[in-house]
């Protein structure tokens, strides 16, 4: 370990010459390893259980690490539950919600940040407060959707994604950082506000759009409450199906695990590709509140 190169942080190379700081360093390292194991083991457990053959699952005592692997469990579980259908439903839900999320919250954030018409402050205050209070209006909102004929359709969920105060603020904060001179110059060149938005603002906003996209997709993938309330059996997404499988009798334990694995895989793959962006997004929202 190159202790003498450590020039930053709470403990630096001069501390690390002493034995007790070396000890502290390795203790911390051990604790971190332990913590990361706690984070990973439950997930590994799902993966292992999903490919564990049936007889090992029900043996007394059951094996923790399987003696043999049975990949047919995955295939059987997929076919038995007709999981493809629910994946498609999730996909439709995510696609529509994503479009609404980026479009509506984006233009709202833009107007609040750059055009600032009369009433901006009022709207900002209202948005800030609604950002924090979400649970109260469940029944009236459900009734609204019933009245509008939204039960059994995806569009209420899409529109719900279209009014996310948190993302409006995220967009607004980002647009605030775009130099006003770009927009002034475009105005002088005679571009309309709509054209300015699509030709100048949108290309500059790819980073924030990416962050919102990732949040939107992962949120919709795990969205449970409202799809559960609004959608019928033929339209429910993966998350709701998981909930239903949990209480269903005729699905074996290892098949349940296989299905859980299916629900973990898509976000895990997304995470592999975008881990930097996801973490950047998390810290960005954390600091900007």
């Amino acid at each position, binding site marked *: 370990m*190159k202790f003498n190169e450590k020039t930053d*942080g*709470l403990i630096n190379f*001069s501390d690390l010459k002493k034995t007790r*700081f070396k000890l502290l360093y390795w203790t*911390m390292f051990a604790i*971190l390893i332990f*913590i*990361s194991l706690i984070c*990973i083991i*439950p*997930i590994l*457990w799902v993966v292992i259980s999903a490919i564990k053959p049936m007889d090992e699952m029900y043996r*007394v*005592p*059951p094996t*923790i690490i399987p003696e043999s692997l049975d990949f047919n469990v995955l295939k059987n579980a997929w076919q038995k539950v007709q999981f493809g259908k629910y994946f498609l439903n999730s996909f439709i839900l995510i696609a529509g919600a994503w479009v609404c999320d980026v479009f509506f*919250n984006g233009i709202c954030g833009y*107007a*609040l940040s750059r*055009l*600032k018409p009369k*009433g*901006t402050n009022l709207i900002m205050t209202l*948005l800030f*407060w609604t950002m924090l*209070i*979400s*649970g*109260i*209006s*469940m*029944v*009236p909102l*459900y*009734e*609204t959707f019933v009245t509008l004929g939204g039960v059994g359709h995806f569009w209420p969920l899409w529109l719900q994604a*279209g*009014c996310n*105060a948190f993302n409006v603020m995220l967009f607004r904060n980002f647009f605030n950082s775009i130099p006003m001179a770009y927009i002034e110059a475009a105005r002088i060149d005679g571009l309309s506000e709509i054209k300015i938005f699509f030709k100048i603002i949108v290309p500059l906003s790819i980073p924030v759009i990416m962050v919102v996209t990732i949040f939107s997709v*992962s949120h919709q993938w*795990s969205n*449970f*409450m409202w799809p559960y*309330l609004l959608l019928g059996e033929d339209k429910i997404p*993966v*998350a*709701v199906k*998981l909930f239903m499988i*949990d209480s269903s009798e005729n699905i074996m334990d290892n098949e349940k695990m296989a299905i*859980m694995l299916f629900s*973990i895989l898509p976000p*895990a793959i*997304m*995470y592999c590709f975008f881990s930097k962006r*996801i973490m950047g997004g*998390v810290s960005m929202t*954390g*600091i*900007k509140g």
Partner: protein
Amino acid sequence: MKNNTKKQFSGAFPSVFKKTLKRNMPGWTLLLPSIVLFIVIVWRPIIVGVLYSFFKLNGFHPVGFVGFDNFIKVITDSNFIKTLFNTFKYVIWSLIIGFPLPLLTAVMLNEMLAGKQYFKISTYLPGIIPGIAVCLIWKTLYGEGDGGLLNMLLAKLNMGSATWLADGNKVIPLIVVMMSWQGFGGTLIMYLASLQGINQELYEAARIDGAGFFKRFTHILLPHMSGIILLVLVRQIISVFQVTEQPLIMTDGGPNGASLTLGLTNWRYAFKFGQYEKSLALGVVAFLILIGLSIIYHILDKKIND
């Protein structure tokens, strides 16, 4: 003189009006769709919810003003105090389990010379799993009898199997452990970002002045982090206060109501028992408590961002 101003004003008014309209039109046009959505989906339901909580409802139609009757019904319900108490128990446990750990881990992780990326990725992994799947995974970990992973591990250590979620005293901390497991990585990354913003020269200066490890920790690190720590704290309190999904999936409020929260009771009133009045009244009660908490958040956020 008076007449004159009046005349001027009335003459100027339409053109001022036109000017305002012209200046604000593009902004208003862009805001319009969002405002409509927010009114229909967010603001109107809140207002209607508060209003209707004072009425007797038939289905969802108000049929008579009843004053505070609904509130009295909800608050005098034999389970209300227990539920409120439970909800705060969730919050307190989440402060004990879920709050210090990410902070300390972030501080430790920031000192590491190698493996930072590995630790970051592995601790954030639980955060990407859908909430439902997290609940179901932990349900199998906490499984009673021989099937649960924790009981299997206990058996390997030659200890008898324990009851987990079925134990009314353990159920809340166990659910909180699961929630902390899921949220851990996200909070950790926020703290890390803040830690990286510490001016290293401060440490250098402190060292020259002879400040030891703990002095550096309490006089440089903690003051720098206090803003984000407070934000995370209040945000966590607010979000744990509204917990609904986790007890619904893990235990459905059981055993014997030991893990019931305000959020879940509200959900039950609304979608299990169809008692809309009670659900609305309880929603308002929770709303008032949340408003109190939100005001604190708002003040802190202003202080920190300025």
